[in-house]
């Protein structure tokens, strides 16, 4: 009897797991599939029409087509947006790492006045409402000519990347046993030597994870991109919304299949990278609270 019951629970559990997977994958699969269709209708004509057209009424103007992807990839903007996103996210993460790693080292090893201030500021920066800083950026960038530049965007994204890099790295440095640091210091090594030769090599997988994590966060960011990028530096996630297949300078009303093709192309790199650092996701998203 208990064998039967056990099998039964297992069966139910698998059904639930499959249902949950469906919940995750179904919308994505629709997006990918829609991207492969050409829609006769105007903006947001939707998918029901296509379904009905094909299966229930035997008519309608939907055909399988790779045209949206081809357009996005070959002709126009996607490669350009991709390069923009990589340049902006990459340089911003690099700056955040250069500044954040020594700070993380200090936060991990030392107690000093002002330490709570730094931690609090970083935490606040991570959760701040973009509008609280957006207008000053908007005004100052306009004045300094940083609007729609790689430099400007890399600086803005430090709001996301600096807390992530610093607080995650602080956790990784703390994971190294205290005695290792003490042995190094007693051996006569200076702080920068210990950081470069002892701490950083040991925390290198962590640094890679934090960098990838921050990169994905920047890649996905929409808000700052919406306000501060323009025709030169438009990123992938903004491009999803305002159009891939046209040249990026222009604005046009989107069609639903085009939107979906763009969405698919936008999430592929992010999903691959996130799965690569899967082990560290919880840690990154809770800023080190969950290990």
């Amino acid at each position: 009897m208990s064998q039967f019951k056990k099998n039964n629970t297992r069966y139910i559990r698998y059904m639930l797991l499959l249902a949950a997977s469906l919940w995750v994958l179904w919308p994505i699969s629709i997006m990918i599939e829609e991207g492969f269709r050409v829609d006769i209708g105007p903006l947001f004509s939707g998918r029901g029409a296509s379904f009905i057209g094909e299966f229930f009424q035997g008519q309608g103007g939907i055909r399988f087509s790779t045209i949206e992807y081809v357009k996005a990839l070959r002709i126009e903007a996607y490669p350009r947006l991709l390069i923009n996103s990589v340049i902006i996210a990459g340089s911003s993460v690099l700056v955040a790492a250069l500044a954040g790693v020594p700070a993380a080292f200090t936060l991990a090893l030392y107690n000093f006045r002002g330490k709570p201030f730094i931690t609090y500021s970083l935490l606040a920066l991570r959760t701040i409402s973009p509008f609280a800083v957006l207008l000053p950026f908007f005004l100052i960038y306009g004045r300094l000519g940083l609007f729609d530049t790689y430099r400007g965007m890399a600086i803005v994204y430090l709001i996301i990347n600096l807390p992530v890099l610093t607080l995650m790295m602080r956790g990784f440095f703390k994971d190294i046993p205290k005695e290792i640091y003490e042995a190094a210091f007693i051996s006569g090594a200076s702080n920068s030597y210990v950081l470069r030769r002892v701490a950083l090599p040991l925390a290198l997988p962590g640094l890679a994870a934090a960098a990838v994590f921050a990169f994905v966060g920047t890649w996905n960011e929409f808000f700052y991109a919406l306000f501060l990028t323009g025709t030169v530096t438009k990123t992938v996630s903004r491009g999803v919304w305002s159009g891939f297949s046209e040249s990026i300078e222009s604005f046009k009303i989107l069609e639903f299949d085009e939107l979906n093709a763009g969405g698919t192309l936008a999430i592929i790199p992010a999903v691959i990278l996130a799965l690569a650092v899967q082990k560290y996701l919880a840690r990154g998203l809770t800023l080190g609270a969950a290990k």
Partner: protein
Amino acid sequence: MTSISLQSISKSFDNNKNFAVNDITLKILDKEFLVILGESGSGKSSLLRLIAGLEEPTLPGDILFDSKNMKEVPPRNRDVSMVFQSYALFPNMTVFDNIAFPLVASESNKLDVDTEVKRISSLLKIEDLLERKPSTLSGGEQQRVGLGRAIIKQPKVFLMDEPLSNLDAALRAELRTEIKKLHNKLQVTTVYVTHDQTEAMTMADRIAILKDGKIIQVGTPEEIYNNPAHSSTAEFIGSPPMNLIKVQADNNILTVGSQKIAFSNSASGSIVMGLRPENITVVGNNGKLSGTVSFFEYLGDSKIINLTIEDELIKIKVSDTTGISIGDKLSIDFNVEDIRLFHVNGNSMK
């Protein structure tokens, strides 16, 4: 050529509510091998870390190396070496790089790295391991590397924080001898922290016994064994430790339950009598005390009789228990010179 002088050193980790190290004054002589012995939580590691500079004293108090005040000197400039219980080797470096680390890391080094590592590794018999990573070594080998890393920079002072506690018994005995030999050879002032009385007794020139952040006795192993200054010292040293028996003292008579021992002393009232198990002998009858055998403990080379004398349980170390069985009445004898008396609060009576 370094003596260390601690002058009323205190350390608190909770804003002076509790003190891990409580007002300790101690002089460690040049070339001396001083063992700090104490149970876990006695503050012995904190004391060592204060000497290393890894912790800063809480209240005013000075740490002097010879006559130089170390207060403002960071650990890296104190010219000390430390060996850790957890070995604390750098897992990403080879054994060679680990041993060479102090020479490579400090700017002031003038020694040749290659020759020094060769010399040290042959001294510690780890020449064959130089290319390996620490994680592939046994605990004993790792601690040898740790010792190598400590020795190579020829420091003024060695600090050892329970270096053998993570090793199994056989290796521990082996490395114990080796550390002692190293000390004899290098003649460097050494402070060695342990909770293991055997290590303390076998290695120390002097032992400092620490309890609740305070030193309760400093002396050579013989002094500590023969004249414990406190009942807890008496309990700490010796295997099995000293028997501590509650007695009534009156007019040069000590009364255990209802049995009386003549012993000239100045005490009166409730006190504690200390008697080492190995100083007691079993006699047919007419011993100074008698009781009932409760149980035995077998140690291999010797045996311990647990004897109940009225309300007290006394351990007697003997080589042979033939003819004695549980429940027997037994009479015991000892020299009254071996008796040590303590106040009820633990302090020794002199």
